[in-house]
């Protein structure tokens, strides 16, 4: 007679030595591969790298005499760090000791919140970095001549009919505005694209599991 799955299960474990625990070596020093721990680690590494990078940029911008760029970028990326530090607190509150649905839903909600916040911020991040760079090169160092004004004066010598708006040629305004708008438009998409490359497969899988659980719950 065909055996039921219940008896296969019961008898199978009685007969086999499958329940012998594998040898564990120093497991408490092991690097966790759990999704929450991985995100926490990734966040920490990214934030430290951003802070270190922002100091490096400030230093370099002073060294090459474009301090406005360094200061601007320092402020922008450190706002990003503060926002993400707050988001990281939410990650540490995720409790694995609740039912599976609640646990996955909490993680999913955190993930959605952090994606939404970072996507929105990316719409400002890239344009602001661009504007910092432009200001850096335009205004040059503190005091002294303004490289942007020197460039405009030289342009006026060659093209005296240039239309100026607040002392800057109109075509430079238009180009700057176009790049800023494009960066604002694609900023959020770049963030999503980046996230999707690394975690897209996993996030879709999590959605699948949650949908299955919701079906079981309703």
């Amino acid at each position: 007679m065909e055996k039921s799955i219940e008896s296969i299960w019961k008898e199978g474990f009685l007969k086999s030595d499958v329940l012998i625990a594998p040898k564990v070596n120093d497991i408490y020093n092991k690097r966790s591969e759990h999704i929450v721990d991985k995100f926490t680690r990734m966040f920490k590494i990214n934030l430290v790298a951003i802070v270190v990078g922002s100091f490096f940029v400030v230093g370099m911008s002073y060294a090459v005499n474009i301090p406005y760029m360094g200061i601007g970028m320092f402020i922008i990326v450190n706002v990003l760090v503060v926002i993400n530090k707050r988001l990281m607190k939410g990650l540490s509150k995720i409790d694995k000791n609740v039912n599976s649905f609640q646990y996955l839903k909490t993680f999913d909600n955190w993930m959605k919140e952090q994606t939404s916040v970072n996507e929105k911020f990316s719409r400002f991040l890239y344009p602001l970095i661009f504007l910092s760079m432009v200001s850096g090169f335009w205004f040059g160092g503190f005091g002294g001549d303004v490289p942007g004004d020197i460039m405009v004066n030289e342009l006026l010598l060659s093209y005296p009919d240039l239309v100026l708006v607040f002392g800057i040629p109109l075509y430079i305004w238009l180009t700057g505005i176009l790049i800023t708008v494009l960066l604002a438009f694609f900023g959020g998409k770049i963030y999503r694209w980046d996230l999707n490359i690394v975690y897209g497969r996993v996030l879709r899988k999590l959605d699948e599991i949650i949908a299955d659980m919701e079906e079981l719950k309703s």
Partner: protein
Amino acid sequence: MSHKKRRVSSDFYTSSILPYAAIIIKICRAYTNSQEDFEDYYQEVCLQIWKSKDNFKGQSEWSTWVYRLSLNVSMTLLKKKKNKHQHFASDYLPVEVVEEPQAFTDESLAQLYTAIRQLSEVDRGVILLYLEEKSYQEIADIIGSNPNNIGVRIKRIKERLKKLLDGKVN
């Protein structure tokens, strides 16, 4: 890690995890396809139990807590594959799954596990708890579901497992 802390964690493993290793092994086997992944999952679950032990408030049995945590961790454990992208180890189940010989000496059990691995993540959890003779209410509490639906789902899973074991479904 200091020597003292290492000893404390080793004591915790011996006293609080090892007696329940069977639960962890049964669950990890259902979510992995190779001995290497299984051992990684086992170690990770032990690590997470140790890290979360202070959250255990005694509102449920320790064994129920171990079931819940093992399932939660196994369902969301990431592996880095050759292409560097993150995946769940359970994603890599070829249709013609070949269980490593050292895993199961009982052929029927090996076939049952092969069939279980072809279920969705949630269904694997449900059927494992059912086979461990948990009540519908307990399964619903661990998974976070409605006990009335658990019975229906188990019936469906059993039918699918039967088909898989009979070789009617890939």
